[in-house]
């Protein structure tokens, strides 16, 4: 396997920084900490490579690292106001004026329901829909069979639907 060069690693950052940040943001619901963890994820991974070790799947490795770092973080809050959702999302108040307010309110409600799911359900939903990872990729990151991942995603969606219509 080819060694990951600095250039390749920076390219990986350009491609994956947003995804890793989003994954963290939906795990801990704290924008600033999510940014810190995203940064930490990349620097730790680079430090790991500098020790001469090899990484087969950089994307999966970054997610695993981020996941481990998020586990140590306390979830800030499980209920969200519109302001809090905007804070996590990083909306600029000026930009909001041009948006349809009802969309933001609904997004806040959806975020609230997602945050109330159990950790396993929340994790697969985030990876599948917020990060757009394939079932196989999620399986590699979590160390699960693809079928197991699919079942979890299906159950998480059903649970979320129930909550949305409750």
């Amino acid at each position: 396997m080819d060694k990951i060069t600095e250039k390749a690693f920076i390219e990986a950052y350009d491609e994956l920084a947003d995804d890793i940040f989003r994954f963290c943001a939906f795990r801990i619901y704290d924008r600033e900490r999510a940014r810190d963890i995203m940064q930490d994820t990349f620097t730790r991974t680079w430090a790991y490579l500098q020790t001469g070790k090899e990484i087969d799947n950089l994307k999966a490795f970054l997610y695993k690292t981020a996941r481990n770092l998020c586990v140590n973080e306390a979830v800030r809050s499980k209920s969200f106001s519109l302001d809090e959702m905007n804070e996590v999302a990083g909306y600029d108040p000026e930009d909001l004026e041009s948006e349809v307010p009802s969309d933001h309110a609904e997004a806040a409600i959806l975020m609230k329901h997602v945050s109330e799911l159990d950790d396993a359900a929340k994790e697969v939903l985030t990876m599948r829909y917020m990060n757009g990872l394939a079932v196989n990729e999620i399986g590699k990151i979590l160390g699960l069979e693809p079928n197991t991942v699919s079942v979890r995603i299906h159950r998480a969606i059903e649970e979320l639907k129930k909550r949305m219509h409750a």
Partner: protein
Amino acid sequence: MNNNEPLESKLKRLSETVSLRASEKNVHRENLKAFMQKSRMPVRSPYMWFVGHGARTVGAFALFLIISGGGVVSAEISQPGDPLYLMKLKVTEPVRSALILDPEEKTAFTLERTDRRLKEFAAYSTTENPDAETVSLITTSLSESIDSLSEDVAEYAMEGDADLALNANSDLQSILSAHSRILNTLAQNNPETLEDITLVSRSVDTAIADTENAEDSIENALESILTSNDSDEQARETEEELIDIRSQVTQAVSTLDEMDRQAIEENLSEVQTVITEAREAHREGDLESSFLLYAEAGQQLIELETFIEADRNLGIGILDSDE
């Protein structure tokens, strides 16, 4: 959001609302590049931290020893009138005492401090123009150590350790008695410091009287503790200690002139008689008399040691005195 829109689609759209701003992403990118550049530098062993910091630490410690440690050592051997004498009395000795956890060892150190103070005072009072402040420093420290020993003796007695109480009391009495005699000789030879010497002499005599009173009360408690089965072992150990002190005194005698040597040898002979009596009393089962006789022998040996040292260091002919 459209109510007919599938939930999966809504989740995807929700995720789009959470993203890094371009400025944020650039800041983190630059941070990452800086980190990567830093890690390109020659790899430094994690142990280098110790080498660097360790070397500085060792250096600082060495400096500390030179400055503070050296100061502590200097203070420990400083004499009245030296700049570090105050540090010795107020810092090094109290700290050393505080670090001793064993009560018997602490008592032994306090006895040593008492002996030191009296020796220091004897030497200082023969110098020209002794400073009143230094004399006050010595007498205060002396009073403190004597008070501390009295407390130790009382505590031992109260806890039923009458033998420890009697030994500590006896040792204190030996030191005080020897120095009382030294102070009397000094007073005769140094009329210019008579006032200071008399002051210390009085406090020493008061302390001797206190030890005699304490001795009476402790002896009453002795009988109850001198019935243990290991009294043979205790007697043997006591004799060994006395023989050890006597050999030290015998060695010191060689530095004296003929007349002093004869005086000391006569005293040693008397001490040997007391030890023999103690041994016989023990053999006859009179443990209390045996204990007291051994204590008396020890007391006499300590006094002889103190006299020899005073004669050598102060040159006051203490061994020639009539007492």
